């Protein structure tokens, strides 16, 4: 047997050696395959993100070259009430939408993890709103939340609850944007499904045979094992939130209204840059958005650690 294998492979090995002799070593070839990805990332994300930030110290309208103005943009920002309102709006949105979206995704994954007839259709139904194009989704909700003719208030009316005027009131508008985003949780849903599916059966059986009930098993075994995934989802959704409500603000809030209640930070950055051509000021606000994001992420991590949901406990 051994001889046969020797005879079989030896010529191939030789041929291979000759063939590879004339070309790059395999590992270098792998780096070549990586090249488009790395080049694309650098050109489109890494370098732009780094180049964009120094613009914060300039006056730049994208037509003439940037003029250095020091901390002028920062000073203006600190006295700009619309800017502070946009910080507040984004903060409210993160505080409400991110936890609710995560809970919704986890709940749906728990509900639809186990096989049953037609499970694919159920999962598909939960994912479906996520694939609807942003503009169509925003227009749809503008209609659903129409105070007089919209189905949501008509439904509330049938239950005897007077529906709010939604996009006319400041808080109604903020809640409306949070509400419409609660349907588009497909990504978190699928990630939770994958995470739950990877939990080894034996671990759970051990817990059950120790006399733990379902809630105790969930809190004591499932949640810690899922914690790293939930933490990544939490971070990702927080960052995503800062961009995801741009289209709703544009369509539902008709450009950030009423009274700037849906002027989230990306909206104000967009308006400053592309409507008033104040790229320097917009870059300064982008810094502020980074800072807010970092602050929220650190706070979230702190809370997660305190609840023993951090990475370390999951090991």
């Amino acid at each position, binding site marked *: 047997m051994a001889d046969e294998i020797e005879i079989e492979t030896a010529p191939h090995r030789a041929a291979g050696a000759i063939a590879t002799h004339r070309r790059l070593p395999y590992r270098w070839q792998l780096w070549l395959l990586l090249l488009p990805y790395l080049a694309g990332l650098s050109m489109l994300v890494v370098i732009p993100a780094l180049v964009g930030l120094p613009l914060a110290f300039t006056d730049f309208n994208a037509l003439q070259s940037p003029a250095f103005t020091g901390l002028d943009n920062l000073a203006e920002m600190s006295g700009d009430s619309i800017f502070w309102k946009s910080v507040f709006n984004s903060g409210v949105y993160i505080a409400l939408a991110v936890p609710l979206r995560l809970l919704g995704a986890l709940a749906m994954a728990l509900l639809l993890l*186990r096989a049953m007839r037609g499970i694919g259709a159920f999962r598909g139904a939960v994912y479906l709103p996520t694939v609807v194009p942003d503009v169509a989704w925003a227009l749809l909700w503008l209609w659903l939340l129409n105070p007089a003719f919209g189905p949501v208030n008509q439904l509330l009316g049938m239950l005897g609850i007077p529906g709010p005027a939604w996009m006319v009131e400041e808080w109604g508008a903020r809640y409306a944007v949070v509400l419409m985003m609660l349907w588009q949780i497909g990504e978190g849903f699928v990630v939770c499904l994958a995470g739950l599916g990877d939990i080894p059966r034996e671990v759970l059986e051990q817990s059950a045979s120790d006399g733990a009930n379902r809630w105790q098993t969930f809190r004591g075994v499932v949640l810690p094992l899922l914690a790293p995934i939930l933490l990544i989802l939490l971070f990702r959704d927080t960052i995503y939130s800062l961009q995801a409500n741009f289209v709703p603000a544009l369509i539902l809030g008709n450009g950030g209204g009423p009274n700037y209640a849906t002027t989230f930070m990306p909206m104000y950055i*967009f308006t400053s840059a592309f409507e008033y051509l104040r790229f320097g000021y917009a870059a300064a606000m982008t810094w502020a958005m980074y800072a807010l994001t970092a602050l929220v992420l650190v706070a979230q991590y702190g809370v997660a650690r305190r609840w023993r949901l951090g990475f370390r406990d999951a090991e």
Partner: protein
Amino acid sequence: MPNRPGRHLRWPRDGGRVLVACAAAALFLAPIAFMLMTSLRQIGVPLSRQLELFPQSSSWGNYPAAFDLAGMGQSALNSAFVVVLAVPLTIVVASLAGFAMSQLPQRARLALTFISFAVLMTPVTAVWLPRFVLFKEVGLLDSRLALVAPALGGTSPFFVLLFLWTFLRVPSDVYESARLDGAGALRVWAGIAMPLARPTSVAVGMLAFVAYWGNFIDPLLYLRSREKMTLPYALQVLFQLEATNWPLLMAGAVLITVPVLLVFVVAQRSFLQRFREQGWLGR
């Protein structure tokens, strides 16, 4: 005695769960159902003050009206142009990168995974302005190719990671015989790795399709000419023209949503039904 995960319903124990699952599905589908129902209302019939699940007098008339008014013919061609270029390019770039990462030594792989996560965490808002300047410099401003550009980097590091995780599950000796035959990395990727990763390719293709088809911000930022705009922009034009004609707007919304739904229905099997169901949750 561990139960096998059930393929079939066991009444009445599963009854409650099925009811909850049905309620959840109905809740998630309700907005889309209202979109469809409203779009079928006959032109000129006033809106109802009562909740109406199906319009009294229905017609398809809003569809051609929305299509013509928003100039969706040209926009659909533009959207198709973007998707046809960007989706295959995304699959190729992302799978090449994911494959290479899965074959590299552990240290390089971890470093690249970390970089991918870091980029994933960068808000797109941060690159709006510099990309605008970059596209202006290289002459991509007001060009449809500006909408395809992100595909050059695999669109999202998330797609690369999906391919990486797929390829890591392939035992390394699968590639071994091909390499002994003197195949280079590119041939191993094309001949052995990619056929094994078909479900991942389908899933990434679907996600990329959704992203490019629905992209509203990029055309808004980088395009100027009306005739180059994609479908989401056409829908916004319709909104500006007929801001309170809800049946017409919903017809427009359905029109741009249907292609995504079709792609989703075809592709969803490959990424929604692969999860093993087991353990605590499988009992």
